[in-house]
């Protein structure tokens, strides 16, 4: 079994590579979650064109590694990959991939959902909405 694939990347995420990484003869189920930039319209008619992601990369990477370990303690994970992009992510493109393989499908679904839900709680990553008029707003910044 190879080590977990945990990465913060400034380049487009490779979904095929993530699926390939978690493929394994002892895994009967692979669950692949992609978080993508969703098109939005502001109240005053501006279109969302992209999300700009920023990370405290050293901390986020170690948090994601610890999160993979927590998932491994709860489910019989064969392979796991957690990849998060930074920089500008246009509408429709993935900003995050969680790929999990397990012997049976139920565990793969549960573990994958656990990882993305926990990632959103405390991993040191932020996103800024970029609008068609060139303005930007940090999400959740108050």
């Amino acid at each position, binding site marked *: 079994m190879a080590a977990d694939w945990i990465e913060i990347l400034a380049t487009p995420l490779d979904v095929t590579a993530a699926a390939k990484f978690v493929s394994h003869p002892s895994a009967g189920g692979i669950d692949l979650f992609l*978080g993508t930039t969703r098109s939005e319209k502001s109240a005053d008619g501006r279109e969302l064109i992209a999300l700009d*992601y*920023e*990370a*405290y990369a*050293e*901390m*986020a990477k*170690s948090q994601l590694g610890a999160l993979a370990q927590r998932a491994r303690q709860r489910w019989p994970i064969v392979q796991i990959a957690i990849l*998060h992009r930074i920089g500008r992510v246009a509408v429709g493109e993935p*900003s*995050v991939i969680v790929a999990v393989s397990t012997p049976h499908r139920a565990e793969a679904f549960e573990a994958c959902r656990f990882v*993305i839900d926990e*990632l*959103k*709680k*405390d*991993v*040191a*990553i*932020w*996103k*800024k909405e970029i609008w068609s008029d060139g303005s930007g707003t*940090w*999400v*959740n*910044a*108050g």
Partner: protein
Amino acid sequence: MRITVRFFAILKDRAGVDSTRLELTDGSRISDAMKLLETQFASIKPQLARAAVAINRNYEKTDSILQDGDELALLPPVSGG
């Protein structure tokens, strides 16, 4: 002692820099560093109140005592994924 402070996301935008260095007396807590930052960077005061803090890449409470050479990170509410 000297520590490095790193700002992220909205805090970085408001501060206008991504890091700074602080000179503190030995035994200072994170909360002491934050008070000093408020005077040096008045523009970050509202966001500082809502920020989480990390020392050397681990979340800490604001009453934790700092050590020379620490990297103190100020983290606005996260929004990854």
